């Protein structure tokens, strides 16, 4: 360990730490553009210059390694002057685009100017002209005039995707970052470029001109589109429920997790957020008999039917279609209730079709919890419709993927034969008209629980978005059902939260004991 002093604050860090990271540990943020923790220090923006006692020139915090007894000053007059100097240079050729630039509110140039700049402009020359709003890729727009040449984009495409669509051309003030021969950036990670660009030089086409960053609330969650389990931040309009605004969710950003996705997410997950708002089920729908059904009534009604079959020794007539978008807790509850208590064995899985994996984050599985289902002990039996529908009186369907496994006419025929069919789904589908009861449930972004990713990492999450629909999370419904079935009331009563369920899972399943944090 090495002891240094930053701004008169003693700090102890591991050998080999940079001044930048030592300052970060001490809660001192050092302004920077080109530095990004995913890459080796670049040292070209010159914004992170700090004063080190005994060294006549200012030194870069991002690349200077700490030495025992080093005394660093990040707020001295010389340092502030140097920062102001760098800002002045960057803003000299920068276009006055703030009113039309999507980066506004999230822009390092703006932030640092507010903190260190606040000077009067002495620029009386003509600004350099460069390309504006050209297409960089299917998801990206390039405004070269705003570029500060931090080269984060070039480095990302070189070191992370290894596709190298961008390079630095020309020399001196004419140096520019660009694509080559019009070959667009068309890889599954292009969205990260808009995120790492510290200014509005690379922006998201999807987000363009839609809103301002200061209107957005942020919540963290886990991307459900494959089994990598990338950590994400969901940005939504914070006024959504009070004022009429065009959409709720505006964009997804990556959230750093060194054990799962590092600094990145893929475009599939980043731009696949419309499902959070589109085609959602808002209300309980009853297609037979009672016109209105409240949530409180569902569990007792279903429990009664299930118990009847149980005590007639006809539990084999209970069937479930599950999917691996369900959380660990939900799958565990299903196993306990239907596997252990009711002893049903007709449990199958209907999942979205697999896709092609890439060699970075995206997996073949396009659902987040296959590993969880396996760890809980399910054989992920492929769906056999005849087995499923033969001799079944009660069918619980979780999720609407069943609709893709057979044609609608076939499904209708099968489902009509079953006495009680219940669908728990977040989204509208053709199945809604074919079952007896449709129960709306929240998406992963709107509930809590945990998921097990493809490498066996168990990740807990809480709601990132509020759900104002008449929905109930599957885990809550299952707990109520477990209690209503009566045979194990005390056991299910302890599950007042998903954390409590996960704790119990740790006691009963070795895998979850080991992976509990």
């Amino acid at each position: 360990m090495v002891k240094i002093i930053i701004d008169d604050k003693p700090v102890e860090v591991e050998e080999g730490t940079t001044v930048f990271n030592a300052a970060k540990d001490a809660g001192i943020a050092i302004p920077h553009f080109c530095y990004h923790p995913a890459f080796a220090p670049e040292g070209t923006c010159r914004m992170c210059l700090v004063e080190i006692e005994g060294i006549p020139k200012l030194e870069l915090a991002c690349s200077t390694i700490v030495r025992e007894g080093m005394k660093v000053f990040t707020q001295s007059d010389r340092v502030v002057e140097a920062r102001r100097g760098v800002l002045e240079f960057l803003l000299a050729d920068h276009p006055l685009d703030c009113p039309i630039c999507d980066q506004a509110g999230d822009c390092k140039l703006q932030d640092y100017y507010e903190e260190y700049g606040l000077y009067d402009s002495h620029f009386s020359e003509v600004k350099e002209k460069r390309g504006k709003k050209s297409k960089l890729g299917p998801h990206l727009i390039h405004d070269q005039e705003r570029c500060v040449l931090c080269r984060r984009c070039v480095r990302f495409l070189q070191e992370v995707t290894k596709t190298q669509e961008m390079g630095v051309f020309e020399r001196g003030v004419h140096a520019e970052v660009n694509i080559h021969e019009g070959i667009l950036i068309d890889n599954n990670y292009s969205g990260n470029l808009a995120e790492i660009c510290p200014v509005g030089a690379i922006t998201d086409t999807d987000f363009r001109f839609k809103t301002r960053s200061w209107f957005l609330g942020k919540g963290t969650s886990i991307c459900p589109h494959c089994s990598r389990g990338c950590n994400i931040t969901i940005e939504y309009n914070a006024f959504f429920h009070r004022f009429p605004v065009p959409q709720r969710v505006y964009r997804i950003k990556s959230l750093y997790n060194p054990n799962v996705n590092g600094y990145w997410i893929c475009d599939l997950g980043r731009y696949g957020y419309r499902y959070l708002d589109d085609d959602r089920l808002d209300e309980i729908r009853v297609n037979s008999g009672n016109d209105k059904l409240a949530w409180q009534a569902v569990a007792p009604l279903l429990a009664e039917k299930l118990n009847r079959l149980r005590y007639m020794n006809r539990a084999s007539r209970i069937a479930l279609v599950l999917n691996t978008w369900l959380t660990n807790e939900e799958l565990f509850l299903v196993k306990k209730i239907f596997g252990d208590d009711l002893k049903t064995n007709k449990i199958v899985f209907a999942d979205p079709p697999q896709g092609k994996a890439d060699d970075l984050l995206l997996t073949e599985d396009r659902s987040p919890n296959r590993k969880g289902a396996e760890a809980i002990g399910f054989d992920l039996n492929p769906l056999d419709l005849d087995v499923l529908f033969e001799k079944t009186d009660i069918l619980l369907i979780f999720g609407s993927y069943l609709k893709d496994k057979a044609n609608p006419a076939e499904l209708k025929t099968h489902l009509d034969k079953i006495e009680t069919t219940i669908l728990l789904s977040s989204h509208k589908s053709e199945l809604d008209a074919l079952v007896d009861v449709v129960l709306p449930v929240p998406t992963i972004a709107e509930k809590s629980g945990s998921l097990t990713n493809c490498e066996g990492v168990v990740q807990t999450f809480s709601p990132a978005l509020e759900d104002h629909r008449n929905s109930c999370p599957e885990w809550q419904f299952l707990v109520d059902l477990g209690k209503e079935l009566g045979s194990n009331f005390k056991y299910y009563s302890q599950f007042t939260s998903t954390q409590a369920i996960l704790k119990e899972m740790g006691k009963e399943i070795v895998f979850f004991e080991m992976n509990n944090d």
Partner: protein
Amino acid sequence: MSPEFSEQTKKKLQEIIARYPQKRAALLPVLHLAQREFGRISFEEEKAVASLLEIKPIEVREVVTFYSMFMREPVGKYHIQVCSNLSCAILGAENLIDYLKEKLGIGLGETTADQKFTLTTVECLGACEYAPCMMINFDYYGNLDQSKIDEILDKLE
């Protein structure tokens, strides 16, 4: 149409590449040869060079656009590069540049209609003791004045 190096050049290229432990290091010498052979380095030449050195065409473009001597467009038979730096300017280079523009009827960076002369200015050529000076292709000419320039250009076929 993918440009093909001549057999003789191909041999030279292999000899050059062998000098370095990494193929990429031969890029500048190879580009000089490519420019000599093809007259300029456009996308087609970038691809040929990239494939020879096992790098990407974008990397070739990054290098070509960094260095002043590599041309993306072809130049005339004689590329007149007049030094516009300090010592030469002190001794009247700027007037000579104007004279050349007038004499050839072209501006800086332009080529005469018969493709014979291209005129550009360059920074210090390292011949300040003969200021004002110019380089035509790779030949240096110093102690210039208007009549000397006339003499030199007349001799060029």
